[in-house]
């Protein structure tokens, strides 16, 4: 059984208008997605801005009111608040946020920040609690003197590590990491990614890793889902996605990753423009009449793509021919 099973998850935000301010339409931030996260893996969720990644992540930790669909954990649907409370759900599922400064309460000392989930879920004695906090700080590589300081006194990387420490404080089974490094400098980003990996190794945590940086995702994730306008367009293993992308949207994202090999940049650029060309010309082939993605079809045990069956087979074969 998977750790988390997301089934046909929908989150719609109402748009009110008209004379009586009634709900006339809705933003379909997440529009029917399903995927499973296995224990101990890092699951990548990739997509352009506004594609619904954060909304998905928030739904999984229970921060968002879900319109329909289910998220099963330990056989219970945790989209219901009562089930979450009953399971002490957030003891097991935690979150790391994108903006490290805003995710740490500026008026609280680091000790209180890290101890917050402990105080709510594990009622420890004062000393035990302090010890735990100190150990957590040690694990994320911060000195004990951080204990009584405030978030603004740390650099971005350090703050993000404090966020990690808080997230792992209750030894959760799953951590949702919503763009944990996209606001960070290259070198600091490396730092945080290293820590996340280290902690995963040591505690066997699963991540739902949300990012739009395909380079980072490739570095971190075993399984990846590509999201586009509230729907999944492709899911697969790292290899499936990076080496055998099927959906034009995935290809486009991949082509847009800057090439670090200076000598090949011209070729890279041409390749990218070619993909763009296809993307523009073949929109209606890849999307249904409303411009939404098709339902996913399985093309291999690990790989699924949101295309009509026939088209999917055709593309798979083309790919094989090329290879």
């Amino acid at each position: 059984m998977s750790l988390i099973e997301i089934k046909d998850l929908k989150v719609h935000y109402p748009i009110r208008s008209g004379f009586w301010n009634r709900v006339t339409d809705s933003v379909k931030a997440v529009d029917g997605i399903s995927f499973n996260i296995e224990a101990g893996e890092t699951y990548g969720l990739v997509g352009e801005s506004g594609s619904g990644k954060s909304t998905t992540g928030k739904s999984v930790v229970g921060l968002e009111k879900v319109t329909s669909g289910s998220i099963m954990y330990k056989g219970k649907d945790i989209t219901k608040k009562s089930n979450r409370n009953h399971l002490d759900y957030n003891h097991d599922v935690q979150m790391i946020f994108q903006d490290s400064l805003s995710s740490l309460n500026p008026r609280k000392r680091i000790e209180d920040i890290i101890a917050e989930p402990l105080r709510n879920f594990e009622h420890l004695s004062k000393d035990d609690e302090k010890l735990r906090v100190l150990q957590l700080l040690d694990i994320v590589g911060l000195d004990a003197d951080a204990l009584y300081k405030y978030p603004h006194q740390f650099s971005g990387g350090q703050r993000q590590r404090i966020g990690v420490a808080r997230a792992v404080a209750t030894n959760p089974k799953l951590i949702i990491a919503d763009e944990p490094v996209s606001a960070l400098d290259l070198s600091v980003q490396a730092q945080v990614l290293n820590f996340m990996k280290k902690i995963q190794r040591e505690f066997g945590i699963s991540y739902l890793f949300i990012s739009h940086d395909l380079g980072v995702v490739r570095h971190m994730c075993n399984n990846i889902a590509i999201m586009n306008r509230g729907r999944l367009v492709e899911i697969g293993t790292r290899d499936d996605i990076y080496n055998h992308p099927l959906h034009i949207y995935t290809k486009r994202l991949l082509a847009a990753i800057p090439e670090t090999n200076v000598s090949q940049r011209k070729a890279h650029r041409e390749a990218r423009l070619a993909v763009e060309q296809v993307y523009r010309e073949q929109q209606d082939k890849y999307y249904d009449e409303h411009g939404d993605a098709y339902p996913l079809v399985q093309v291999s045990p690990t790989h699924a793509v949101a295309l009509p069956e026939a088209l999917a087979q055709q593309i798979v074969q083309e790919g094989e021919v090329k290879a």
Partner: protein
Amino acid sequence: MESTSEFLNIKDVSTAFKINGKYYDAISHINLEVHHDEILAIVGESGCGKSTLATTIMGLHDPAETKISGEVDFEGTNLLTLNEAGYNKFRGAKIGMIFQDPLSALNPLKRIEDQISEVMDYHTNFTAEQKHDRVLELLDQVGIVNPKRTAHQFPHELSGGMRQRVIIAIAIACKPDLIIADEPTTALDVTIQAQILDVLREIQKENHAGIILITHDLGVVAETADRVAVMYAGQIVEQGSAEQIFNTPKHPYTRSLLRSMPQLENQNDDLYVIQGNVPSLQRMPHEGDRFAPRIPWVPESAHEKDPVMHVIETGHEVRCTCYKEFKFPDEAEDVKA
């Protein structure tokens, strides 16, 4: 691409900010040249002084709060000696600037057309009609699909990518010789980033302009830049063509940065991490190699007392001699010990 002529020459420029009554250098003794038809990328971590350099060239600092020394020779004029009115002849006309945050950089209350044609009000004697035509032309040029419609809209009605295009349109409206782009794509998605960079490159080709591209994304640099200057703590630590920097990086800082990028090869390994932080202004060391504290395993003797730039080959310069002895800790067990 061969550089044709140099038209911007930054000589020994330092900019100091007043903090609690004392001046602290944010950039010190910068020397740089920009040529027509080239993209010069400036890279470095946050707080290295990249933006300060850009705003110094643009003369956007409050003279009461800053002290600037050195020379910025732009087509024969030292910009730093100009008064406000003199500077305004260059801003917008000969030098265009593109800012990072596309939302706040546009006046929320003015239509796109007015914001673009405002540059022309001061630097051309176009008639209203000419300006209107030019606006549409510009919007088309930066890749906006429906220029007529967009010209009439307000910034909040546009997406981030479109706003950034508008800002580029403003910057190039008067066909400037120099465009300074301060992190133009940081706030954007990869796909849009790629498009914006394309636009920039096309414009440069068309206008034969020189572009200073400020970014901390090495991928962007590798994709776009002709030459690269790496900045650390207010200084340029390495400078060279894109090939030189990416293929044969010398300075420990450059090498560290490159190494900390997630790459295909190191998929399952840990990424390289540079120890420590960029020092804040008040804590900036003023003697010796400023990067030394972050590579503590390199013996002090390897550093110069007063590091200067060393030419390695044509166009490739590196500060300090420590690069010669620098090895990553995992490359040389002996050094680490």
